[in-house]
């Protein structure tokens, strides 16, 4: 019964991974003589990638920035805050706002990119709004591209963490939550010493899923800034795309892909070890 799963994964993920590794040692290009008759060139792509000025270090840094800003802060932390605050909120507001947040998550990514692009553009709604109240606006997509894309990704993705935490909080015994509320002054301590430990597994799983989703993200940034201005928002996935398709060096692009795979694998292994230690992978609680 597991066979179809294995077949699909081997055929459509397993082999492409191997092929990625193989191509990264070749000189395959989009056009020119090496487009179809490519040769093995050893580690040349990797030497070029790891030499200074290749842009790799900046891209890794930007990917991590995006991960921390849009996933850990903008989705996990913010999502938890929302879920927690909603516990003590009027039912109507809770339902309405919950639906709004979920709708943001359901909107296709390319549409989210377009809406945010329009809002943050020169002459867009944000600029008009700020001007209306007498505030200046510099086009964020240009002056703060990473903040722009991180905001958009938080807006779109917070629902996932929010849903996880809402569900987990609803399993926390009411007395504990009530106590935490009544005793206003000690809210923070209660949160830290009682509620967070109860939610530890959920938090961990949330981190696993959003980390991997965010490292994988391409569409939002590609559509909003194209990695620019210059290379200011060139996260790894966009960097890979540009090297492979805009500068015609397919194989060099796959070498970047291998770096992306390795970073994904490192995160996966860390999380799997942690989940395993907590017994969280045995599922039945």
């Amino acid at each position, binding site marked *: 019964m597991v066979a179809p799963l294995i077949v699909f994964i081997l055929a459509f993920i397993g082999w492409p991974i191997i092929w990625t590794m193989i191509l990264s040692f070749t000189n*395959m290009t989009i056009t020119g003589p090496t487009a179809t008759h490519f040769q093995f060139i050893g580690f040349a792509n990797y030497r070029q990638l790891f030499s200074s000025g290749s842009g790799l270090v900046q891209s890794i840094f930007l990917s991590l920035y995006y991960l921390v800003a849009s996933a850990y802060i903008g989705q996990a932390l913010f999502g938890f805050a929302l879920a927690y*605050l909603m516990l*003590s909120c*009027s039912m109507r507001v809770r339902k309405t706002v919950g639906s709004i947040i979920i709708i943001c998550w359901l*909107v296709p990514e390319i549409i989210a990119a377009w809406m945010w692009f329009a809002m943050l553009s020169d002459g867009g709604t944000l600029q008009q709004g700020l001007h209306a109240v007498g505030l200046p606006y510099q086009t964020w997509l240009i002056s703060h591209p990473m903040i722009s894309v991180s905001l958009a990704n938080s807006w779109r993705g917070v629902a996932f963490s929010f849903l996880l935490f809402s569900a987990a909080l609803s399993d926390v015994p009411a007395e504990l939550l*009530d106590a935490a*509320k009544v005793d206003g002054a000690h809210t923070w301590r209660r949160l830290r010493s009682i509620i967070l430990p109860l939610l530890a597994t959920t938090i961990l799983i949330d981190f696993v899923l959003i980390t991997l989703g965010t490292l994988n993200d391409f569409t939002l940034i590609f559509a909003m800034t194209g990695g620019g201005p210059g290379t200011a928002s060139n996260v790894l*996935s966009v960097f*890979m795309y540009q090297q492979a398709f805009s500068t015609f060096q397919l194989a060099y692009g*796959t070498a970047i892909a291998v770096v992306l795979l390795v970073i994904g694998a490192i995160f996966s292994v860390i999380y799997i070890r942690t989940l395993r230690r907590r017994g969280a992978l045995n599922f039945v609680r």
Partner: protein
Amino acid sequence: MTTRRVRGPSAVRNLSTMAISLVGVLFLVPFLWLVVVAFQRHGSLELAGGGGFTLSNFTSLFTGGGMFLQSFENSLFLAVGTTIFTTVIAVFAAYPLSRFGSRTQEYFVYVLVFLTGLPIIAIMIPTYDYFVTLNLINSRFWTVCFMTATALPFATWIARSFIDAVPRELEEAAWMDGSSRFGSLKRIVVPLIIPGICVVAVFTFVNAWSDFFVPYILLQGANSPASVTMYSFFGQYGVNYSEVAAFAIVYSLPPVLLYLIVTRWVGQGFALRGAVKG
């Protein structure tokens, strides 16, 4: 999810209600422009102007050119196909992984979690090359297969945690009566994990419907889904923003409607609780 509400000092309650309401309003801001412009004649980045109210942007989607209908149909094919394949395969695979625990099975689950985290984007260039070699390129069916493979690890992971929650005793009774493994899955487990199946299906559908990069690389021209069509409008001055906004709204509706229908139908068991239990 119980509707139990926490009682506390009303000041705290009012404060959090206000904060949450504010968040709700802020989250709506990006939609504002989209919705206003979609009903204008020649919308721009500005909210005002736009040449008056009209519904023609929506009606012309269904009459003019056929590009919209074509790409919408492609999106539907990809998303529905991927959802069906993924859900069926995931539930089948999750059953033995949940029930017949062994060391191998445990490692298999690690592999699934590991694969959940693989950046699919990283393997698109070689996948393109490999699809060209096997002549699978520009085929909606093979694109569905690829998208299924990428959706399976997470879907199987969720499905397994739902099956874990079904008491084993129920099945043991059925086995006593001579039911096969497959039979007990069908008659006992599946009906009990309908909410879980819905989670898997909705999640897969929403992702497949929204997917841009995979079809952008593997499909072309008349086979392109709405996400790729939408991308071709980007940064084009010659494009009428109002028509694109109408396109965007109609394209965004199916996942929202699906979610609303399924949550209404399945009720409280939804909201990804299965995954949390894991």
